[in-house]
């Protein structure tokens, strides 16, 4: 029969391959791992994390195909990926939400291991490697957040590096090293990029290898009571199936998020704006605690608390040496876990609640969100490089018209760069409700747009001068 012939051929090839590679042994090692007490849904988190790491690596590599890690081009290149390249929105969305998912699943994995007491005896190093990996995942979030170089990225990282700078003794040196100077520049972006795509992935891949090796060596801990200890199931097929289902759910959720809540991208970073920075949700608990820590107390949430938390986690198996693994019989440990996770969630909601109930912040955050959406919905516009205009004019924007200098420059600055009394007009055309028609109407009647501080006398400017002013404003693009 043809089938048996084919089968023979396949088995022959498999033997041939096995003689040279030991593939049978490897497959057996991978699939026949004994699981004490049998397969469980509680054990899926590790595999899901490994899957998420693979997703981050794959999508990260392809994102770097079009991403340009310099302050001049980072934002437009991310915009290109998000808005113009076929499937770019999906790959960026997977990377964006995959990062968030990694934090969530890593915490779930840690909580499960903690609750099941699976960090105890013989598994100290396995656990320690896991805690280090959680730190590295947070490092990924911090460095990746800057890369799109939009408003949120720029100001979020500015706050983040300033926090690092407030640490006593080492702070200022540390901040300078992080920034690559005294301020956030394209050099900062290069450093974050290098850390994000070379250093951290190498570190994480190494720790994943160590973690898996130590895990296989220690064998799975099994359930926290000893009733089912006799029952042993292989990883394949039952646990492999449960892991695959969890991975599928995770993937479907990521794709749905990328589709229905596309990864955000706001206008390009404008260091002169008064952007209200808010951290991503998983840094929010520290952000909230920072509000209660004036002056030199800031070090408590920024350094001491995280250090104590991670130090305790790391050293946990060394001072918790009792054999008991049942979470109900370890009330202190269980209570601590509930307190830390519950407290963090509480702080996140408190931070959101306070922002919503502070009219000034709520208004500002709402406007920032509108600006983000307005930019996001605009079609992609390529950046002109080495253009004819810059050749003609030495790269500088066109000179302002006389009517601008006479009527607007006093408050908005000679080159629209802004003053303490009035904001910059550079890039104004990219903001919501600031189309050409809007700008003309604003000159006629600023009050109609809620701009109470602008003088009414502007309506007296001759129409052709108004046109000149607005046309010039439209040429001013944020760099």
């Amino acid at each position: 029969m043809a089938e048996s012939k084919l089968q023979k051929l396949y088995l022959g090839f498999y033997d041939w391959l096995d003689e040279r590679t030991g593939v049978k042994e490897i497959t057996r090692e991978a699939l026949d791992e004994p699981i004490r007490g049998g397969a469980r849904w509680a054990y899926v988190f590790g595999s899901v994390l490994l899957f998420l790491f693979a997703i981050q690596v794959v999508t990260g590599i392809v994102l770097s195909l079009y991403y340009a890690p310099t302050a001049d081009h980072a934002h437009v290149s991310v915009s290109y990926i998000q808005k113009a390249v076929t499937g770019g929105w999906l790959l960026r969305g997977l990377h964006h939400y995959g990062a968030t998912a990694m934090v969530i699943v890593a915490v779930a994995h840690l909580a499960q291991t903690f609750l099941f007491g699976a960090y105890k005896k013989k598994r100290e190093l396995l656990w320690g490697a896991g805690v280090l990996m959680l730190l590295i995942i947070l490092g990924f979030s911090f460095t990746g957040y800057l890369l799109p170089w939009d408003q949120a990225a720029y100001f979020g990282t500015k706050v983040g590096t300033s926090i690092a700078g407030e640490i006593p003794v080492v702070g200022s040196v540390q901040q300078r090293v992080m920034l690559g100077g005294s301020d956030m520049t394209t050099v900062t972006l290069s450093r974050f990029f290098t850390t994000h795509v070379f250093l951290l992935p190498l570190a994480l891949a190494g720790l994943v290898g160590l973690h898996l090796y130590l895990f296989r060596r220690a064998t799975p801990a099994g359930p926290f009571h000893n009733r089912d200890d006799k029952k042993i199931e292989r990883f394949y097929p039952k646990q492999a199936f449960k892991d695959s289902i969890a991975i599928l759910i995770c993937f479907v959720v990521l794709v749905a998020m990328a589709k229905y809540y596309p990864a955000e991208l706001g206008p390009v970073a404008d260091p002169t704006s008064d952007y209200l920075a808010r951290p991503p949700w998983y840094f929010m608990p520290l952000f909230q605690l920072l509000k209660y820590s004036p002056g030199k107390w800031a070090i408590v949430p920024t350094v001491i608390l995280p250090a104590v938390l991670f130090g305790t986690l790391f050293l946990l198996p060394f001072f918790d040496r009792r054999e008991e693994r049942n979470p109900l019989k370890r009330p202190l440990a269980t209570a601590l876990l509930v307190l830390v996770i519950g407290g963090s969630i509480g702080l996140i909601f408190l931070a959101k609640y306070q922002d919503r109930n502070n009219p000034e912040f709520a208004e500002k955050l709402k406007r920032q969100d509108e600006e983000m959406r307005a930019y996001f919905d605009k079609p992609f516009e390529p950046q002109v490089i080495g253009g004819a205009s810059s050749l003609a004019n030495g790269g500088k924007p066109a000179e302002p018209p006389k009517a601008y200098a006479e009527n607007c420059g006093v408050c908005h600055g000679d080159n629209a760069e802004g003053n303490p009394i009035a904001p910059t007009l550079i890039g104004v055309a990219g903001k919501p409700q600031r189309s050409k028609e809007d700008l003309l109407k604003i000159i006629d009647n600023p009050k109609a747009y809620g701009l109470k501080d602008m003088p009414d006398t502007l309506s007296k400017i001759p129409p052709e001068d108004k046109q000149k002013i607005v046309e010039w404003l439209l040429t001013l693009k944020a760099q």
Partner: protein
Amino acid sequence: MATEHDHDGAPAPERRSFLGVISGLIVAGISTVLGVTIGRYSISPAFSTSNEQEWTDLGSLGEFAEGKLVKKNVIVSQDAGWGKFQSQRSVWIVRNGESVKVFSGVCPHLGCSVNTRADKFVCACHGSEWNVEGSTVAGPTPRGLDTLEFRVEDGKLKIKYQDFKQGLTSKEVLS
């Protein structure tokens, strides 16, 4: 046989199972979605670039000396990825009375820059030579110099820059 049992003494489980097939399908499905997306993402932009150029003004026709080989630089714009990259390209103009020829400064052989020596066009890379008409005189070039479209409006010479495929005996636009 030792290979049929592992160190726990339990028999090696049956590899074929319904759950195993489902797991395999899930892995294959996710890989396919990612693979197809990444393939299209990586390849499609390479085919959506455009280098359609606009008419460029090279100045008054009268300024080009009779019978001389004159080099002019034009700015060309290439849409590629996130940028509109503008850069300069050289073209050669030969005027004989009302008759004008505009040559691309790119060698049709392998894309080096064409220059002049005495009354000839030469490419230093591989020694191709052309006369003022753009016809091949010597060297490995597969065809004469590529001519560019031009028109004269109000006494001004305007050209449309284009790139052509190299290494072919006939001139084909690179789009």
